[in-house]
């Protein structure tokens, strides 16, 4: 009797599973047919021609083919991406036809109450990131500094950056804190990456934090000293990761926060209010596009690295930051804005 009941139970479960799978497949088909022939707007918060724009155009091309729709890339380069993300948050378009590519540090800006932030990261639909730049603490390629110890010997090592709030800014301040370079000074305000690189190269500053693209090639202006990540970078296997250094526990937590904030970088977003089945569908689609051989080939040609991250992981990374206590936020704010910007 028990065996019969067990069989019935199994049949019931199997039937339910088939119904659920069928329903979800039907929902996916429904969502797929919704997108067919439509126009999807992919908002890029930076200027055309930059890294974000190139990734977005590659993704737009791949997703458009898969969805059988037209994806148009719209550039809204203002206030470090703030205007674009605020607009996405405020948009009444919840039909899933508007997407955006998130800049790095979105959650960090929210908890630190950066000027102009109107959005709430929890309400966006996180679809996954195509790539998160690995950053390095780097010196001029012809400089005598071979290690962090050499930099520490300076009376006041100077670090160049664009804005303390720009993506590289928090990484720079936290790396200085983690590496215990107490006498370091951040010189902020350079108009762009080019000016930062030149400032380090001509000796106006001693080091900076830059992404892989600025360090590769025999004619690169900068040379990496430390990877600001949990592991070494395949491009520079001899360069130590920052976690290999002796880091105070409280600083380690800040470092983790800055590193866990990276998942928002280049992640596709939907505005608040988009139906869950559309978000689930778009998450799967994004993952397929991130691994699209045609996209990977084009990205390789453009020297754009691809290291995909799922929507769930991106959301989890963002939530880690949003859960920080006010005291932790205050400490973070002090290190990023005040301690080294003298």
């Amino acid at each position, binding site marked *: 009797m028990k065996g019969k009941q067990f069989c019935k139970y199994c049949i019931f479960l199997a039937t339910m599973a088939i119904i659920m799978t069928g329903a979800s497949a039907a929902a996916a088909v429904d969502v797929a047919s919704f997108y067919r022939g439509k126009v999807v707007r992919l908002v890029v918060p930076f200027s*055309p021609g930059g890294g974000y724009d190139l990734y977005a155009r590659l993704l737009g091309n791949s997703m458009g083919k898969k969805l059988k729709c037209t994806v148009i890339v719209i550039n809204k380069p203002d*206030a470090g991406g703030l*205007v674009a993300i605020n607009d996405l948050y405020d948009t009444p378009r919840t039909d899933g036809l508007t997407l955006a590519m998130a800049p790095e540090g979105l959650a960090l800006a929210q908890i630190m109450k950066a*000027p102009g932030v109107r959005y709430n990261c929890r309400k966006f639909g996180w679809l996954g990131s195509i790539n998160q730049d690995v950053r390095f603490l780097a010196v001029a390629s012809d400089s005598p500094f071979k290690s962090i110890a050499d930099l520490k010997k300076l009376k006041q090592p100077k670090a160049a950056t664009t804005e303390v709030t720009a993506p590289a800014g928090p990484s720079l301040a936290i790396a200085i804190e983690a590496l215990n370079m107490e006498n370091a000074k951040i010189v902020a305000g350079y108009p762009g990456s080019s000016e930062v690189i030149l400032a380090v190269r001509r000796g106006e500053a001693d080091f900076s934090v830059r992404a892989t693209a600025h360090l590769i090639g025999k004619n690169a202006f900068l040379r990496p000293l430390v990877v600001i990540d949990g592991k070494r970078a395949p491009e520079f296997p001899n360069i130590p990761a920052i976690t290999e250094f002796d880091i105070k526990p409280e600083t380690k937590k800040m470092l983790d926060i800055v590193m866990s904030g990276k998942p928002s970088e280049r992640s596709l977003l939907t505005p608040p209010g988009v139906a869950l089945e559309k978000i689930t569908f778009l998450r799967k689609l994004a993952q397929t596009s991130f691994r699209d051989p045609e996209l990977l080939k084009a990205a390789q040609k*453009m020297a754009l690295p691809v290291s995909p991250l799922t929507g769930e992981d991106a959301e989890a990374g963002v939530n880690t930051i949003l859960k920080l206590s006010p005291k932790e936020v205050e400490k973070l704010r002090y290190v990023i*804005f005040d301690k080294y*910007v003298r």
Partner: protein
Amino acid sequence: MLDSIAQGLAVIFQPGMMLAIFLATLGGIIFGIIPGLNGMTFMAIFIPFTFGMDPYLAMSILTAGYAVAVTGGSVTAVLVNVPGTGPNSATLLDGFPMTQQGQAGRALGAALTASGLGGLEGGVILALLVPAVMPIVMAFGSPECFFLIVMGLSFIAALGQESKAKGMVSGLLGLLLSFVGYGPGTGFARFTFGSTELLDGVKLIPCSLAIFGMPEMIALMRSGRTIVKEGTEFRAPAADIWEGAKDVFRHWWLHMRASAIGVFVGIVPGVGGDVAVWIAYGHAKTTSKHPETFGHGNVEGVIAPESANNSKEGGAMLTTLALGIPGSGAMAVLLGAFLIQGIQPGPAFLQEHLDLAFTITGVLILTNLLGAAICMLIAPTLIKVTRIRSQLLAPFLLCIITLGAYCYRNSISDVFVMFGLTVLGWAMRQLGYSRPAFFLGFVLGGLAERYFNISMSSHGWKFFMTPISLVIIATTIISVSYQPMMVFLRKGKD
């Protein structure tokens, strides 16, 4: 080397390539003529079409359209006092008064010839200066950039036409407006009244349209007449344009100096073309035999900024190609276009793709000459705009100006900012405050603050103690005090 030059230039003269360059030049002129659109917009719109295109063709199209936009922009600056692109703002100071005096053809002839030749010289200098670019870029740190900008700011006094005091007040007002938005480096917002749209500050195009274009349109509507003053005698447009072209050769030494200023400022990353034209204009005025006629239709005031305008692209292109360092926002876009082609500009680029570098240089030269020639051909027709009654012309131009303010960033807030600043522009016009001085303060204020902060932070208060800084300071003092000193000495003699 010679092989690369020959190969690079031979590519340009293939029929398909010639056609593409011609069409891109036409497109660039149209983008330049329409306020709000510029060379950077041209590149931004056409970059997606270059996916999968031959790199020579792709880079030629983008270079041609981008480089010639400022030539198109000079047409609207001269004819209707509306700068087609940001760097054309200095051209209208003397170009438009010349138009009002019935010399539109001459002003256009001078502007277009200076543009074409400036672009030619910029291209030639681009090719010649490749070995010297690294030392120049390395020599210009933040203190040197700061003093270069201060040199530009020193012309505020020179731009105050009737009253020096009013000129200074106008310049300070411009400086004040430039401080709206994020403070450099800090990420803290200032004077934004809580508006997200103002976080990045007031943008150049809406401001130039509000300060120069809109007040002129209002004045035109109130007068009920044509742009050209009544009773003005007209010459045949072709003869007038030819006269303007000859003016450039009459003032060839000024043209060469202004072109050199353009190339030089273009090379220095982070300073930008908007600075180049004002330094060129200020330099022309302070070294002119008739500085009092500047702002009232002196052709030298058209030649200098237009020469610098187009030659600066050679300088900006130089750092982009030779070092992989974009000297301006537009060059950053061009760098992105290179990456799409799988090409990384930089020192290795010149070794591996020297032929492509010469193709781009050749296109830069060719498109500037072609652009100037096309504009000269259509100029006689365009000049007729100045004889249309204001009741018909002004509403049309107001629509174009409003559209220009909007399509600069696809932002309606820019339109509101423009209307708000129009009140200021109109008040300054009526009360005789110098609008060029205001605009110069606005353009250079943000950069001056930025480089002052960096210089103080990295070098301390002794930041001016570098040889190049001291030379620039000395040049600034001499250029500012030269004319008052001469006047003083002449009075002493009398």
